[in-house]
């Protein structure tokens, strides 16, 4: 991989961040209402993606237990609590040999 390729990767990544934030006009209230429903769905989708490999393999049991623990903590709506629950779930799973 060359420096030029790295710079092209940077341009693509920054361009994707820049595109909608700078070029789009301020959306109408109706579109804004629909867009406000997107973030949680994107994060749930990303969580699912990280549990299934491109080869269609599901993650190891400790990772699944960590995710389940974070999901159980989710109704409290605390990011730090979800992280702590996830790590605790992972460690518990490893300790009991799952």
């Amino acid at each position: 991989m060359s420096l030029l390729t790295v710079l092209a990767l940077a341009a693509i990544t920054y361009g994707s961040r820049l595109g909608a934030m700078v070029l789009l006009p301020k959306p109408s209230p109706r579109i804004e209402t629909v867009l406000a429903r997107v973030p949680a769905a994107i994060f749930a989708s990303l969580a699912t993606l990280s549990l299934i490999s491109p080869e269609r393999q599901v993650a190891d049991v400790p990772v699944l237990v960590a995710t389940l623990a974070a999901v159980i903590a989710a109704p409290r709506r605390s990011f730090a609590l979800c992280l702590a629950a996830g790590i605790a779930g992972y460690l518990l799973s490893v300790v009991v040999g799952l």
Partner: protein
Amino acid sequence: MPEAPPSVGRTLATALPAALAIAVFGVIFGASATAVIGPGLTLVMSLVVFSGATQFATLALVVAGAAAPALLATAAILNVRHLVMGAVLRPILGSSRLRRGLLAWFMLDETFGFTIVAADGRTAGPDREAVAERTLFVSGMLCYLAWVSGTLLGIAGAGVRGVEGVAAALFPVLFVGLAALTARTTSLAVRAAAAAGLTAVVCFAAPDWRALAPAVAGLLVALPGDPRPRPHPSDAA
């Protein structure tokens, strides 16, 4: 009475757990990329790309022998979700194109979530815009420093032996935490669950399209329902 805007310290405290996780990912990236592309390009990549998903995916492709066009195409597909996320952030940021352009640098999955939450419940206007812009900048700067510092530690030989497993678990856990933060109503939680289900279907039925799943599923589950804005609680007073 409207909630007081979050201070810089509170924003930093909120973003700190994510920044620590990003630093761990940075160490892993720095250590593994140095062996493949050398320390110089590894550092430059973290400095100018600043995207864990893009950098890890690119590295895997380089190891597999892929050429530059494949790397660039993969990056483009992976980053489609940024267009959707940018469109979500657009209404809550200020009118200055230059400022939005500079802030775009700091838009990661994590900082996007923190910004949405900081602006949540505030009446549209200059105050909400200031809170959103400050949150994006402060949390973005912290995450950038964490990513570059982690990469440097990885290049310098730091290892994460013993915590690789936890690091693997951190990816889904981080995203569940961000989903929890942003799913402030039952309706949003149901839509998030639907997006997770759609993504799982895509992963098994059409794995070649999986990178597009977050953007497509996110938009698809957002469409059903009344698009009329709900009145803000303060409007009723």
